[in-house]
């Protein structure tokens, strides 16, 4: 968000049509996508996967719909590769986010056979012959597997997710023992994929709850021996929207593709609020 008090605050963007060649897009609704192509039998060593995808396209229909696509894949391919196969050769309108394709960028969290996972960390052999893919729950769906991530990042931003400490000579390192460093190691692994937050039944039902990922990122600073903002973060998390909404269902821990013990981190924050600080 721009800082409106700054002398350089950005003016509202003006809408003007300088280019006179007409709009980029044609008028009217876009074409309906074509039917899925027939595919031959799987080649030797390949397997057939039928992937059932919950589709949504606000430019075509108001409601979501289900669609099935059969693809032939190597057993060691990723589910992301299968979704690419569908997008690249069956239906170009299929929309999903992805980038690194090996589980570190956090783009492709989706609900796969009912569980939140990264499509790039699921192998075909583990889901074939049939697999169901839906967008993660609890965030507005924008198109197919793409959801609005803004509410998720707002929760993260609310945690003051940056080290608060101006002490020490900037030309030297501050000391931290391996034990102090280890104290918050687990929660530094978070890639902000939202798999945990959107697996939480409390988050689905209560849009005010900040959700597990925000708490994980608060935890990362609260238990960092160098940080001086723990009281403020614990105060925020003790509020109505905070940590006590958690009902310890462990969905978040199960969903985390980075193996973070999310529920444990949430419990530690609860304990700190109850016993250490207040």
């Amino acid at each position, binding site marked *: 968000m*721009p800082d409106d008090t*700054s002398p350089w605050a*950005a*003016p509202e*963007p003006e*809408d*003007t*049509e*300088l*280019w006179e*060649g007409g*709009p*980029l897009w044609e008028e009217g609704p*876009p*074409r309906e996508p074509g039917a899925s192509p027939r595919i031959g039998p799987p080649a030797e060593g390949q397997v057939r996967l039928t992937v059932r995808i919950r589709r949504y*396209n606000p*430019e075509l229909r108001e409601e979501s719909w289900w669609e099935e696509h059969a693809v032939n894949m190597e057993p*060691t391919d990723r589910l992301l590769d299968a979704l*690419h196969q569908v*997008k*690249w050769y069956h239906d*170009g*309108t299929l*929309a999903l986010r*992805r*980038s*690194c*394709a*090996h*589980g*570190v*960028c*956090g783009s492709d969290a989706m609900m796969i056979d009912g569980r939140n996972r990264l499509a790039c*960390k699921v*192998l075909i052999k583990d889901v074939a012959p049939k697999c169901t893919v839906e967008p993660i729950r609890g965030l507005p769906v*924008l*198109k197919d597997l793409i959801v609005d*991530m803004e509410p998720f990042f707002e929760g993260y*931003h609310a945690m003051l997710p*940056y*080290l608060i*400490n101006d002490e*020490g000579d*900037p*030309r*030297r*390192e*501050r*000391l*931290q*023992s*391996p034990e102090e460093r280890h104290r918050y190691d687990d929660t*530094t*692994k978070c*890639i*902000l994929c939202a798999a945990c937050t959107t697996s939480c039944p409390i988050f689905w039902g209560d849009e005010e709850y900040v959700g597990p990922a925000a708490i994980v990122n608060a935890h990362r*600073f609260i238990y*960092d021996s*160098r940080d001086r903002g723990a009281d403020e973060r614990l105060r925020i998390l003790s509020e109505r929207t905070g940590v006590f909404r958690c009902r310890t269902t462990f969905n978040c821990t199960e969903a985390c593709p980075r*193996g973070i013990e999310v529920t444990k981190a949430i419990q530690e924050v609860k304990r700190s609020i109850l016993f250490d600080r207040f």
Partner: protein
Amino acid sequence: MTTFHTYDAVIVGAGGAGLRAAIEASDRVRTGVISKLYPTRSHTGAAQGGMCAALSNVEEDYPEWHAFDTVKGGDYLVDQPAALLMCEEAIDAIYELEHWGMPFNRTTDGRIDQRRFGGHTRNHGEAPVKRACYVADRTGHMILQTLYQQCIKRNVRFFNEFYALDLLLTDGRVAGIVAYELATGELHVFRAKSVLFATGGYGRVFRITSNAHALTGDGPAVVWRRGVPLQDMEFFQFHPTGIYKMGILISEAVRGEGGILLNSEGERFMERYAPTVKDLAPRDLVSRAIYQEIKEGRGVGSRRDAAYLDVRHLPHEVIEEKLPDVTEFARVYLGVEPTREPVPIQPTAHYAMGGIPTNTDAQVVLGPEETPVAGLYAAGECACVSVHGANRLGTNSLLDIVVFGRRGGQHMARFAGEADLPEPPSRQEASTVETLRGLLRGPNIEFVADIRAELQRHMFDLCGVVRSEKGLRELQGILAGLRERYGLVGIQDQGRVFNTELMEAVELGFLLDVSDAIVASALARDESRGGHYREDHQLRDDDHWLRHSLAYREADGSIHLEHKDVKLGPYVPMERKY
């Protein structure tokens, strides 16, 4: 409807270099950052092993030793003043990250721990030295997170999922950029006094790569189309240890911690190729050694085209505490348990040494005389300073992005603070509309995915670890054919909302452009140096080729090559042995 914005400084890309520049610029002038991904998705987050700085926390070390290794590692194509400056500034850069909360691994006395890395040595090559500061094997992830956190603290204005598609120039000065908003399909014109490109690499021109799908060379291609040359494009690094058939990176830190490479006979073959530093030789040497072992019939894997990376002898706690992520990659993607079995690996396209030519203030410079383009900057992998020369040393990419991201951010802010806002060129978004319309209304005879796959396969086979004149000439013909077919693609998705199909087609255009520049530069350079190995010219030729390549695209689509001198310094080019 096109939307117009006005900023002093616009940064394109939100990986390490873009974020570091944004921290610097946003403190001083009105700054906007546009990124085609959410910032935390950027590929800086995939960097694993470490960031080098001569802190001497664990072993005696000096920035000058680091600079020597950088120059020698780059096979003397490095601009030596830039390397000396980077290695000097490395120490403060590490302390700055520490003060911003970077959770470095620590020594028992609480200082930042350091470990060995390929090509980093004590006293000009005597033995490996512990120079790499690290966070387990997720150093890049933590740098990306830390820099993004600092941007949140400073209220930096982000435009996420916006693609920069054109650079606006007025009388040789930067006037802004044209961007496409993925969520709505609308164009945005960002008028600006200064623009910094930090769009990362272009490993997606190759079939086997460690690079993310997003790394399609957008920045280099956009500026190239506007007359800026691309420097040293023939130098692309193949990292020796990519996961077999997939290319996913297995960090050099594995060898830094004691892992070794084995051939089909169980021999530690690097002892023959680099007797002093063995498995910790620079990446170009190790990748060629693997290639040679495979060629001589000592490969492993189903097609005998891989080697083994072996960590079975390492203590369990080293694997679990210092290398948890890469161990997990082997388990997930190969079904291999590294504590009990060796991991099959093969060289994977990893890092572009070449890119948009800049000076040490990240200003984009033209020609052999290095004339700056007023207001135009580039930093990180998309840029070529050149601190990596013909082959980058491991960890120096993370160092590059924070050092030159910072310098670029400072300089662009200073420039924007003094300059006025140029008038944009007339019909500024016309050419972008034309490109997008051409794709949307294309004949739909060819698949983007087919053309891209063929491009990647041929680039990997004919312009990979080993190259030859014959292969490169053949490849030029193939590229011409692919470009023709690119004119026949179409877009099935005619909608405006999250039309990722349209953007993939645009990105293929960038990949084709970048490939043209790589192949033309590789064909011209009839010597072997660093990452560029010509089997028909196997020796380095300093008499003719101790100079940078500059590739320009002419209006008719042909490529014109120029050269510029390497900036030498204290280190006299000598034979590169390890």
